[in-house]
């Protein structure tokens, strides 16, 4: 490899286009004869559509069509039921899209959507998750394919016998992904072929899904997602917008642009399930864990089983001889939950890392030292050594940078005027996985190179990272490399999700570049003057043949908060994270990913909450004025650091993925700091002032 682009801080390749507005997003491509689609949500929670009256909408000037179950093109039976839209007169949750109005202007489409008359025969519904819901059941597995329950040793006996025990139940609400760019699509049919410009996290998977739904060969579907304004998991697969746009475009036989509204993102695109988590920990008097149990309850829909892997985090994080984890689900009349940054690990870590803090208090031990004492060299779940595990290094380095030493553990011991001050810590971990991918590398006669892979840059800097990796693999300065991503015509690649994008794509990019260099070595005359040399590879075999080993990234989150003694307002003075995530390809974009995750953790801990009204069966605060997301003023000082980590058991680039670990543990660190500041333990997020108010009575 050359002097090395990997590890150097480059600005995003497309940064100028984005900040000047030149970068095109899904509904910004110029298209001749375009029309506009507006999705119509169901007004009942559960029931049947008995009548659709399209006439008032069709009478509006500009309205071209009202597409609904009675006239929409047929989708393949047996498809994902969330995507089997406009096929049946049945409503499974409030807000489910039951029609699309297409018009020659956005405004007419919107007004038309309001004018469509739909009658329903509504039935009773259940939309609230409770720990004693009669519908609780044990799924066959949890996402993506973990065992539902695990047990080792004898938890009950170990717990009963221990001198120190803690038993607490933690609750998290529904959280709603709100990328800046909503789910949005421009769909065009030409000669039986479908072209979509779509906002998603993986154009290859959307292509495959559309091909299945519309019963087309995959080469008849092209999906372009060159720039994507955020996803956070919510665009991980094809979702409603692209299906509705394609159905609508087929109906009117002209291109259709369809973007969901902000309000429509609250539900139909998926959300992080609410959780109810009971954690029981037992330890010796020296703080060594002897028993761990994590029982998690979450919800799914009647359409599709989505089993959040909430307690999986606990299986590998800390060691103990007696261990048990369980997952239970309830099928409610709600939209299907979906991925949101670190699904499973994020809510699970909130509970476990809060419980560890409570145990530290119970055992009279520093919470950093408690975690160090219970570190594991061998994965408690799989029984094999971790390929690398630098949790302790992160905790130590974080404690040093944060100034943790000499912390007085006494709650409510520090005060600055009206503010109570407290500090908290949490561990963090996220699996380091990779999926098969393909990529192609081309040498041009002018000495330049082109690397093509259908990776997706959802704002992370993935395009730039792949460009850096390619340059090093080719052994040339990056300026000689052109990278193309975000188009299903490019070599197939997996989604930007599960913190697997960089590991999976870079693997294929490296192999493609190596294959190209090999080809060039065998071509003594080099690249023909009027041509080029290309090598395309797939890592299917190599990735599939990789030994199953416990591979994880780790981190430690440190937080200082202040809490207003009279009003209960919580502010984060400073937040510091240290992460061990393998090799960092680009410090600039990596830092953004990590502090972005941490900020989202502040949001989870203090601000976000989907507030459900069971009578209506939906979240009433479905806009950004009432669903609060952390703003800049809430983030006063935030730092992300990482430690050098070499792990030869990962992938050619030696990366672990950094998209998600930044949020894991963040909410627990904040909750722990709030407890340290106030002496009050809030076990139901978000921690808002109404839950803390009245502290002055204790002053």
């Amino acid at each position, binding site marked *: 490899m050359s002097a090395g682009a990997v590890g150097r801080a480059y600005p995003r390749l497309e940064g100028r286009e984005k900040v000047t507005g030149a970068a095109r997003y899904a509904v910004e491509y110029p298209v001749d004869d375009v029309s506009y689609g507006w999705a119509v949500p169901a*007004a009942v929670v559960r029931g049947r559509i008995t009548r659709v009256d399209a006439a008032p909408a069709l009478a509006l000037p500009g309205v071209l069509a009202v597409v609904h179950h009675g006239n929409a093109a047929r989708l393949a039976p047996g498809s994902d039921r969330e995507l089997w839209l406009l096929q049946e007169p049945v409503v499974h949750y409030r807000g489910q899209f039951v029609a699309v109005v297409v018009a020659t202007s956005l*405004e007419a489409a*919107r*007004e038309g959507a*309001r004018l469509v008359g739909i009658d329903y025969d509504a039935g009773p519904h259940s939309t609230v998750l409770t720990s004693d819901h009669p519908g609780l059941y044990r799924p066959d597995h949890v996402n993506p394919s973990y065992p539902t329950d695990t047990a080792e040793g004898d938890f009950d006996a170990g717990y009963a016998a221990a001198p120190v025990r803690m038993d607490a139940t933690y609750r998290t609400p529904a959280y709603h992904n709100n990328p800046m760019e909503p789910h949005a699509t421009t769909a065009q049919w030409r000669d039986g072929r479908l072209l979509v410009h779509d906002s998603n996290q993986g154009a290859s998977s959307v292509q495959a899904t559309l091909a299945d739904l519309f019963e087309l060969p995959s080469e008849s579907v092209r999906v372009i997602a060159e720039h994507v304004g955020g996803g956070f998991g919510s665009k991980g697969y094809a979702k409603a917008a692209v299906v509705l746009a394609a159905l609508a475009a087929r109906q009117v036989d002209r291109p259709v642009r369809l973007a969901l509204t902000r*309000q429509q993102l609250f539900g139909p695109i998926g959300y992080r399930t609410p959780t109810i988590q009971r954690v029981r920990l037992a330890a010796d008097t020296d703080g060594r864990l002897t028993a761990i149990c994590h029982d998690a309850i979450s919800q799914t829909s009647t359409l599709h089983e989505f089993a959040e892997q909430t307690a999986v985090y606990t299986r590998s994080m800390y060691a103990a001889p007696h261990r048990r984890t369980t997952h239970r689900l309830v099928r409610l009349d709600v939209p299907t939950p979906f991925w949101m940054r670190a699904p499973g690990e994020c809510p699970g870590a909130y509970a476990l890392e809060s419980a560890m803090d409570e145990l530290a208090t119970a055992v009279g031990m520093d919470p950093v030292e408690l975690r160090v004492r219970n570190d594991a060299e061998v994965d408690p779940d799989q029984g094999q050594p971790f390929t690398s595990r630098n949790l302790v290094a992160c905790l130590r380095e974080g404690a040093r940078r944060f100034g943790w030493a000499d912390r007085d553990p006494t709650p409510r011991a520090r005060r600055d005027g*009206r503010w109570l001050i407290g500090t908290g810590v949490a561990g963090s971990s996220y699996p380091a996985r990779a999926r098969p991918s393909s990529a192609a590398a081309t040498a041009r006669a002018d000495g330049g190179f082109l690397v093509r892979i259908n990776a997706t840059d959802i704002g992370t800097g993935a395009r730039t990272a792949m460009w850096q990796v390619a340059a090093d693999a080719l052994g040339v300065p990056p300026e000689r490399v052109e990278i193309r991503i975000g188009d299903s015509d490019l070599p197939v690649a997996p989604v930007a999700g599960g913190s697997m994008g960089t590991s999976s794509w870079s693997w294929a990019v490296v192999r493609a570049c190596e294959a190209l260099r090999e080809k060039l070595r065998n071509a003594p005359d080099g690249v023909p003057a009027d041509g080029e040399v290309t090598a395309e590879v797939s890592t299917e075999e190599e990735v599939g043949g990789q030994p199953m080993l416990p591979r994880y990234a780790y981190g430690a989150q440190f937080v200082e908060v202040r809490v207003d003694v*009279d*009003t*209960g*307002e919580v*502010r984060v003075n400073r937040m510091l994270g240290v992460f061990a995530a393998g090799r960092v390809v680009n410090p600039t974009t990596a830092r953004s990913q990590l502090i972005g995750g941490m900020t989202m953790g502040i949001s989870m801990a*203090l*601000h976000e909450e989907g*507030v459900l*009204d069971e*009578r*209506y069966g939906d979240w*009433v*605060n*479905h*806009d950004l*004025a*009432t669903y*609060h997301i*952390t*703003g*800049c*003023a*809430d983030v006063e000082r935030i730092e992300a650091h990482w430690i050098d980590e070499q792990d030869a058991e990962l992938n050619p680039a030696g990366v672990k993925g950094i998209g998600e670990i930044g949020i894991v543990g963040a909410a627990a660190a904040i909750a722990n700091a709030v407890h340290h500041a106030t002496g009050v333990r809030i076990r139901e997020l978000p921690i*808002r*002032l*109404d839950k803390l*108010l*009245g502290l*002055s009575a204790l002053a």
Partner: protein
Amino acid sequence: MRPFRYHRPADVAEAVAVLAAEPQAAYLAGGTNLVDLMKLGVQRPDLLVDVTRLPLDAVAELPDGGLRIGATVPNSDLAAHPVVRRDYPVLARALLAAASGQLRNVATTGGNLLQRTRCVYFQDTGKACNKREPGSGCAARHGQNRDLAVLDWSEQCVATHPSDLAVALAALDAVVEVHEAGGARDVPLAALHRSPGEHPERETTLARGALITAVRLPALPAARRSTYLKVRDRASFAFAVGSVAAVLDLDGDVVRDVRLAYGAVAHRPWRAYRAEDELRGRPFSPELAARAADAELAEARPLRHNGFKLPLTRAITVRALTELAEGTPS
């Protein structure tokens, strides 16, 4: 959204005349609230009469020491006005605590006072709301009502008025200058907004088509010692869950005069006359401030999710007045 026409009147008289002739017309000023509600289908005017170009954008000092603020003066300009900053800090603080910089740049003085409630049920045409659709019921009364009223609500409506500016103006005894078809008249700010009662759809006492042209602040030297405290669920860009506007005039340690108004507790900015009566003429102490707040809140009727607003409002009353008494507004 519903197709609508757009008209830019030449003067105030024409604006008022157009509104009088068009039953479905609405004034457009900054549009920060109205346009959102039009997109949501909550408000459906067929004609927008744009008043932003009318000559109502001046801030003028009055001979009696008061201040006259044109109805289209943007919130950001008003907050930055040197006389406001010097003589009415409560007003500048209230303005700067509201919305975001971008919104304050376009939101106007008059428009701010006439903004609609922020109840989530009002803003969702799929849910019952007597304010949006009289007779349809109040989903909030027994629904999610953490952010809603504790004082003066009715079975028909439990919404709160969202304005920070209006709370400060209530404390300052501001007067609203209004043009109606019959001519100009003054409306005390305290009499501008209505209790919800049986008709929550009527939010103000203004006649249909009335146009606010200015807001007048009386001379109030004591207001140089004034403040606005706002508590919200995040550090910026959120509506109040509790707020207080306070003016305190001390003679030694005795309260010579005091003005108090609360936000986020009622359907209108809530002037706390009872609290003022408790305070006036007595030596100031934080305990007295707490008793005054308790007197004001004695008739509060919290809803299922908003009982916290009572200790919160009490706490910020004590803090605001104590800071003013000590000369250390935060």
